[in-house]
């Protein structure tokens, strides 16, 4: 996963997740409350520069991660371009929506700014650090256990899927749409059997170590956490001020 690669190898890796979370939260709020498309686009640009220049996330990787979301945004915006209306006889017809350009500009700029805030967080912070942050924020243990287990097992399942698909493809399992659907059904069924097998094995392993409750791990420590959080707070306030100024 590209996001994982960037999250473990950027300049802000050792910065406290609380600081990065605070900055991202301010970015999201500034995006949602930005008064004009130009302001939202400015916030998006600033957040992108923070990730690329501040955290040294490679620009090519940043764009590769953002591209699917941008494509999705383009498609979503397209749906706002047209309007469906009925005439006097009840016939439906498609037409250009009034003020479509202004609406699309506002929604797209807001989405871009919010996406830049999200990417700024996920491209600089590995998921285990975010889970540790959620634990500090007193998210229920059951939910955190689900996250820890999900994170650990999803790579196991990804490998299983890759190997099974390779084996199926080698036997022409994906040569026609009909065969593809059948192969996919067998693949998903095989995986769903593994859910019970792997869960049973994990439970046995935990019981063998007297594990009967929540899954606890050492909380990672970050130097200069207070300073980083204060700086992130200031930068976040700046984003909010930029967003509020144009209202």
């Amino acid at each position, binding site marked *: 996963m590209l996001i994982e690669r960037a999250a473990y190898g950027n300049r802000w890796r050792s910065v406290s997740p609380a600081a990065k979370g605070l900055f991202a939260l301010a970015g999201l709020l500034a995006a949602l409350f930005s008064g004009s498309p130009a302001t939202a686009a400015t916030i998006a640009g600033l957040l992108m520069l923070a990730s690329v220049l501040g955290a040294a996330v490679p620009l090519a990787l940043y764009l590769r991660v953002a591209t699917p979301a941008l494509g999705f945004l383009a498609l979503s915006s397209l749906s706002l371009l047209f309007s469906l209306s009925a005439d006097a006889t009840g016939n*439906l017809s498609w037409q250009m929506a009034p003020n479509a350009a202004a609406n699309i500009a506002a929604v797209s700029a807001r989405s871009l700014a919010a996406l830049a805030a999200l990417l700024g967080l996920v491209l600089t912070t590995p998921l285990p650090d975010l889970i540790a942050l959620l634990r500090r924020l007193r998210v229920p243990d*059951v*939910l955190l256990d689900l996250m820890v287990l999900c994170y650990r097992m999803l790579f196991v399942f990804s490998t299983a899927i890759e190997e099974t698909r390779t084996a199926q493809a080698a036997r022409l399992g994906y040569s026609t*749409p009909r065969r*593809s659907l059948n192969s996919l*059904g067998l693949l*998903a069924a095989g995986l769903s059997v593994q*859910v019970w097998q792997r869960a049973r094995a994990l*439970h046995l392993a935990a019981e063998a170590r007297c594990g009967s409750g929540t899954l606890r791990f050492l909380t990672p420590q970050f130097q200069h956490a207070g300073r980083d959080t204060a700086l992130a707070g200031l930068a976040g306030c700046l984003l909010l001020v930029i967003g509020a100024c144009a209202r």
Partner: protein
Amino acid sequence: MHIMEGFLPFEHALGWTIAATPFIAWGLQSIKKHLREKPEQRMLLGVAAAFSFTLSALKLPSVTGSCSHPTGVGLGALLFGPAAMVPVGLVVLLFQALLLAHGGLTTLGANLFSMAIVGPFVAAGLFRAGRALALPLSACVFAAAALGDLATYVTTAIQLAWAFPDPAGGFAGSLAKFGAIFAITQIPLAISEGLLTVLVVNALRRFNADELQKLPLFGQRGAKA
């Protein structure tokens, strides 16, 4: 069918998050009660979340010739129950936002409401109704998965129509517009996912009938059908 990050205005993002919160609390409470009786379920649900996440990354061939990703809404509801799907769906949607930049944090509440609340409950309800009417298992599974998927899309269309009412036709005009777009793109996908879920359940019946029989929504009649 995710709504992307920042696409919904603040009031809507907040409103859907508030609407989803009681379901999350109920789902967590239900899991906690379940875990006291069966502690081994803790691992099962975590592994189920990973399964749902990886399943949603698979490419599903559509009946129109294109392809997309399965939502896993129906299959998840049938295998793990709709109540468990709320927290499991929350984790999956959060991970999709954090690891794939798919969906988002501000739209998490809205996406959760459509994909982890409405879809699974419709799927489980239809499956129960079908079994109560003694319909064949494959028909029940297909209806649950395909219509659970469609219910998800309809909810998303309602969410978008509410957030972006048509300047001329208002909410109804906008709902008709989003409904028409989804009808073209999502009905074929729902049919494909229904077929896929039938294949999965058939394969499970063939190779793991015992495991299937232990599931709350299946039981004796489901395994024998």
